[in-house]
């Protein structure tokens, strides 16, 4: 069983970090993982995306054309990658910056205004953590307590911003669960 998650957005939105934290938690859970950035001649504020592979066996090809899930943090990312997602997957949409939803009907869409929620938590910079926790709660790929501990560990050297990110994390989980309840 292998799951691939593409994280995409603007450079500076913390895409690579969200993806790394998910990979880290999955590794701690005992899975094989790989974190594959797309690197190229990019400029500040340009696009940033990367793929996390989580598998119960040794990971072969690190080249993923059709991910299981997509976390889209801005409109160009959604437009670029929505058609690549495998049927049955999740498309996560940051509705603070994406005024539309996907036309795909064979996927589950999770629409969350992550920037607005992060601002409520204290800083827009925590938007990536809101997205991470909301996506993780919806996809159930990793244990949420473990993931939260990984987030805390990541910010260990910047103790001041831990409460902000913990709050952002909880808010993300909460909204994903509310969405779940609504769908059910």
């Amino acid at each position, binding site marked *: 069983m292998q799951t691939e998650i593409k994280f995409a957005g603007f450079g500076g939105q913390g895409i690579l970090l969200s993806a790394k934290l998910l990979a*880290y938690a999955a590794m701690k859970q005992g899975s094989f993982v790989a974190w594959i*950035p797309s*690197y190229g001649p990019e400029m500040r504020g340009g696009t940033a995306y990367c793929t996390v592979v989580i598998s119960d066996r040794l990971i*072969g090809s690190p080249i993923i054309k059709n991910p299981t899930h997509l976390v889209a943090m801005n409109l160009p990312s959604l437009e670029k990658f929505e058609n690549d997602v495998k049927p049955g997957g999740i498309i996560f949409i940051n509705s603070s910056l994406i005024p539309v939803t996907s036309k795909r009907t064979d996927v589950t869409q999770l629409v969350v205004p992550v920037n607005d929620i992060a601002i409520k938590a204290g800083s827009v910079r925590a938007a990536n953590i809101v997205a991470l926790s909301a996506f993780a709660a919806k996809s159930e790929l990793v244990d949420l307590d473990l993931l939260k501990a990984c987030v805390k560990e990541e910010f260990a050297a910047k103790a001041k911003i831990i409460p902000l990110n913990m709050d952002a994390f909880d808010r993300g989980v909460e909204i994903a669960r509310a969405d779940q309840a609504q769908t059910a």
Partner: protein
Amino acid sequence: MAKVLMKGNEAIGEAAIRAGCKNYFAYPITPQSEVAEYLVKRLPEEGGVFLQGESEVAVGYMIFGAAGAGERVMTTSSSPGISLMSEAISYIAAAQCPAVFVNIVRGGPGLGGILPSQGDYFQATKGGGHGDYHLLVMAPDGVQEAVEMTMQAFTLAEKYRGPVMIMGDGLIGQMMEPVEFPDDLKTEPTNKDDWATSGMDFRKSKKRNLVKSLFLDPTALNDNNLALKAKYEQMKKEEVQFELYNGDTDYQILITSYGTMSRVCRTAIDMLKEEGIEVAMLRPKTLFPFPEKAVFEAACKDSCKAVISIEMSMGQMVEDVERCVKGRRPVEFYGECGGDIPSPEKIIDIIKGLL
């Protein structure tokens, strides 16, 4: 030690430290600059030295100097940088000094691109610099192997008193995977006193050591080249490393592939197996010495109809594969370069075309 999640480039830096490397000289170039970024922080903590050269040409000779003094030394670069260092690499090989060179290969020729490639196979295995020399070349297929090979590289460089190269590619440098560091290998080189210009006060032997690559006397030059040749023959006997994947089946096709490309082939082989098609892969882990006998034997299995070398190049390792198969099976080639790595589906199409 528990597993940690690290980028290939950072993991190579940490592996060098754990192998006892105290000297790292480099010049930044994408896609390997994170090695320097990592070591500039870590080396001083270990009492080591990081120095950025004014160019790769300078770095090559800084490596020569440290290696000649018997110090564990490494540099990392990417393709155009390795070209600039190649003169010094030839000198280091001639002077028989141990040093580790890591090439995180990007697309070429020229400045090429910054995406992964395997276009430096010829450069790594057939020379690069001038004269009769070889590098011992290892090609990891992921972060864990990059770590293990980097640590081995220092030991091998000292065993053979010569330059060893790790040939990765941009993807291995950039991606993060879980990695477990083997036990530290901080052993002192045993043969250092015999040759290193480490200073009379710092060694037992009072013999005058001279590190040089100039041999104007034809007999002396011939002898030096014969000594190098003897080392390469010993490497062929003792250092060949490879993996045969799915080799215990009645495979119809044998793939030869290494590094990142071999991982895509591995997935393609697993997918083909589900369709009932058996394909094996011989993955050289050392590119020099090349697994000559293993390639020949795997190709000659009765069930095997053809061999195909799949590379991120326009056809380089395939020449070694053809040499080893000795005409006993048709040898095909598929390669892409420019930075886009072929997908498993593409490889499956190519394989089916051979059946």
